[in-house]
């Protein structure tokens, strides 16, 4: 049985949670950027494929 077990667990849990956030945050940003780029590419492709407006 570890002495001060709860304190040790709490400290390591903080370490794990913060590093997990540090890992996930850029991943979510990257996914959002790629999704935005895909949408932009789709919009531009649709715009170029559409017939030009005539007066």
């Amino acid at each position, binding site marked *: 049985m*570890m*002495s*001060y*077990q709860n*304190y*040790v667990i*709490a*400290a*390591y849990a*903080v*370490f794990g949670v*913060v*590093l997990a*956030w*540090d*890992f996930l*945050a*850029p*991943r979510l*940003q*990257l996914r959002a*950027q*790629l*999704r*935005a*780029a*895909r949408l*932009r*590419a789709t919009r*531009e492709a649709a715009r170029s494929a559409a017939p030009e407006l005539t007066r």
Partner: protein
Amino acid sequence: MQPVIRWFHQLGSPPTFDRFAARWAPIAYVLGLLVMAYGLYGALFVVPADYQQGDSFRILYIHVPSAWMSMAIFALMAVYAAIGLIWRIKLCEILAMACAPIGAAFTLITLATGSIWGKPMWGTWWDWDPRLTTELILLFLYLGVMGLYNAIDDRRAAARTAGFLSIVGVALLPVIHWSVTWWNSLHQGQTISLFGKSHMDPSMLPPLWAMVVGTHVWFIGSLLARARADNLKREAGKAWVLKMAGTE
């Protein structure tokens, strides 16, 4: 031109950096995680309990590497910011700003784990001790850099302004380091030294060095991943981004 210098010049190109970061960030994450796993195993299950502090001293294995990272990342951020300011290298501005959230994360870990250790050892969660207070100011500086960067619409102007704050903030680093020497501090003095003699039993050191190396390698992965995301945000709408988004 020398191949290494040419490679550095090429890395400054956004698409080249994106490919570089996409390739090396996962490798750095995995390597960092493996080294830290070795360090954590040693810290929790191999090294003996301290004769005075009991098992609470095991918190040191995450507290000390995080504290070192909190200061090292700030120094690196200032170096990148200075290069970005002087030579107007966009990639250095991106890297400087990518340092801030990672440094803030390690500073938060340092403060939180120190507080958790302090409760059973000092009898209090917090004390306005010079080392603790200066480390808290470091966290505020990181948050200030992040806030300033996100408060200005023009990304380059934002990076330069926030970078300037980080350069000014470097003055805090020696104060943090020598706070335990300059003032009568509750925080213990230096017990672990990279080059000199450590006041810690040698059997307790290997997991600590593993954690120090592991957190550094992890930082490289995180820096590349964050810089890649910011690089893509700045380059949104460019042909190479649209092409890459279609393939990923």
